[in-house]
């Protein structure tokens, strides 16, 4: 039955910008302070207070617009969106309706089915609302205005997505672009990236859109995928049983796995927008635009291509290394210092990933410096330390960002390349382990492994393994 239907999805993505201060006042945007610490008459809507626009907000919004192929409205202005709710002390939100800063762009996503362009209708700037905390014991809610006035951009897509997979790919791509730009950390669990999902279904082949519902503020990629599947099924069930979909805002309960209609006061959707009289228009000169364009960092797709072409990395390596800006930055810095791209890539993709997984860390949590990784690679490559020792030293670099040169020197970890000393040790090992020697001569090839191990142990792991093997075979 589901096969006869197509799901049509558009997203409104809110992203908190990484500015130090709010959009219209100089209060801090720091997360996690005591309630109402970062407030002033402007962000709490006191009569007579006047907003002044944070220039950095405009620059971030334009940067995101340029990176998502948008046209920039060089003449832009703010509008008032009127509604009453306790998280909004002004009784209006300053937003952009008529002349949003960016419009008509799009980004390419990749799914199993190949690449697809998802259109971006517009990007506008607006202010965030305060946070409501619901008291479980009393019939009251508590309001914290620290978030009130934190700058947001709202990225409105075209209704171009057809599945949860495409939605996740779009969000992932968007997040990556914005993180690369440094315009936001896009942490869904902290609410610095939030998505509203507009969804409708229609018979396959139909050109008309069905009636859509909106699901607000879903907290994670996984929850979004689940909400989409459930809402799609709910709408198809309604249509199949001859009922119709009601245009409404629904809230997704991820623990219980269902959505419910939010009770909204009669016609609360009538926002009666009008031009914001307290803020003057923004005119972005060609010169300013050029300056912002010139500052755009290299984005993931370009970086990926360059890693393959310039450094000769396998596509797989390039993919992993560019999946987080932190990894890409580390890679490039370390390569600059040691000029061994594949080696740097191996350390990042192998040991670094392993240790990250072991400690449940994100790439952003990596604390070691590229200098120390480069030094380690130089030591290992020159044969100054062997592979086993290198791994041991790397664990120290990863955990404490130690200087490998000093560490190896202090701990006496240099590989012993002194052939005479090695011969003496190996002769002794052979003498001490007649059983293994006999096994070896009886064709048990594996016995040599034991003898190598014993030699390494006697040399405290510092022997050159190639040399050990060679001398052992010779003496046996």
């Amino acid at each position, binding site marked *: 039955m589901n096969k006869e239907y197509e799901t049509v999805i558009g997203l409104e993505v809110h992203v908190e910008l990484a500015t130090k*201060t709010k959009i219209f006042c100089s209060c801090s945007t720091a997360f996690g302070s005591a309630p109402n*610490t970062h407030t002033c008459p402007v962000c709490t809507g006191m009569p007579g207070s006047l907003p002044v626009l944070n220039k950095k907000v405009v620059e971030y919004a334009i940067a995101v617009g340029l990176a998502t192929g948008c046209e920039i409205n060089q003449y832009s202005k703010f509008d008032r969106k009127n509604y009453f709710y306790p998280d909004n002390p002004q009784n209006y939100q300053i937003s952009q309706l008529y002349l949003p800063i960016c419009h008509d762009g799009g980004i390419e996503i990749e799914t199993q089915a190949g690449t697809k362009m998802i259109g971006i209708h517009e990007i506008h700037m607006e202010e965030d609302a305060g946070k409501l905390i619901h008291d479980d014991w009393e019939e009251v809610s508590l309001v914290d205005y620290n978030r009130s006035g934190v700058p947001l951009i709202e990225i409105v897509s075209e209704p171009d997505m057809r599945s949860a997979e495409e939605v996740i790919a779009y969000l992932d791509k968007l997040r990556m672009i914005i993180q690369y730009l440094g315009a936001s950390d896009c942490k869904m669990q902290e609410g610095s990236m939030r998505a509203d999902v507009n969804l409708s279904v229609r018979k396959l082949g139909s050109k008309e859109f069905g009636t859509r519902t909106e699901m607000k503020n879903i907290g994670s990629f996984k929850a979004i995928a689940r909400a989409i599947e459930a809402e799609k099924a709910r709408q198809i069930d309604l249509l199949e049983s001859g009922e119709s979909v009601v245009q409404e805002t629904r809230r997704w309960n991820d623990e219980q796995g269902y959505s419910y209609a939010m009770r909204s006061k009669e016609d609360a959707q009538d926002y009666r927008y009008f031009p914001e009289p307290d803020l*003057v228009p923004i005119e972005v000169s060609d010169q300013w635009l050029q300056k912002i364009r010139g500052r755009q960092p290299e984005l993931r797709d370009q970086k990926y291509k360059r890693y393959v072409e310039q450094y000769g990395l396998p596509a797989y390596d390039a993919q992993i290394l560019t999946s987080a800006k932190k990894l890409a930055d580390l890679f490039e810095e370390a390569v600059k210092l040691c000029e061994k791209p594949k080696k740097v890539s191996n350390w990042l993709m192998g040991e670094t990933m392993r240790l990250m997984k072991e400690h449940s860390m994100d790439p952003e949590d990596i604390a070691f410096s590229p200098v120390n990784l480069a030094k380690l690679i130089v030591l290992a490559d020159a044969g100054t330390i062997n592979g086993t020792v290198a791994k041991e030293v790397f664990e120290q670099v990863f955990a404490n960002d130690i200087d490998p040169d000093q560490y190896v020197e202090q701990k006496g970890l240099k590989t012993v390349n002194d052939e005479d000393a090695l011969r003496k040790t190996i002769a002794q090992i052979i003498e001490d382990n007649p059983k293994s020697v006999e096994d070896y001569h009886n064709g048990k090839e594996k016995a040599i492994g034991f003898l190598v191990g014993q030699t390494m142990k006697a040399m405290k792991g510092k022997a050159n393994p190639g040399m050990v093997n060679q001398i052992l075979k010779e003496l046996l």
Partner: protein
Amino acid sequence: MEQIKTGKNVISDQTIEYVGILAKLELSEEEKQAAKKDMERMLDYIDKLNELDTSQTEPMSHIFSVKNVFREDVAEHVDGGEDTLANAPERKDRAFVVPKTVDQ
């Protein structure tokens, strides 16, 4: 909304009820009638303005010819909490207390 093109605008009871809800106002019967008259006069005035030919005029987005007034992104306030909370009709610790909101 019911706007008669020529002549006087008429605001219905329904409209005044709706505007009241949007503005969170409870109006007495007298106030409703007075508001109706005011709104009708406003619409008539707008009709008068609409008689002007503005086809050759650029839309105006702000009455001042000022643009690009910005702040640099530098934090100033340290802790405005107590000043802000002085305006709270009711507070609990560091937060405003409001009637429970339904749809969160």
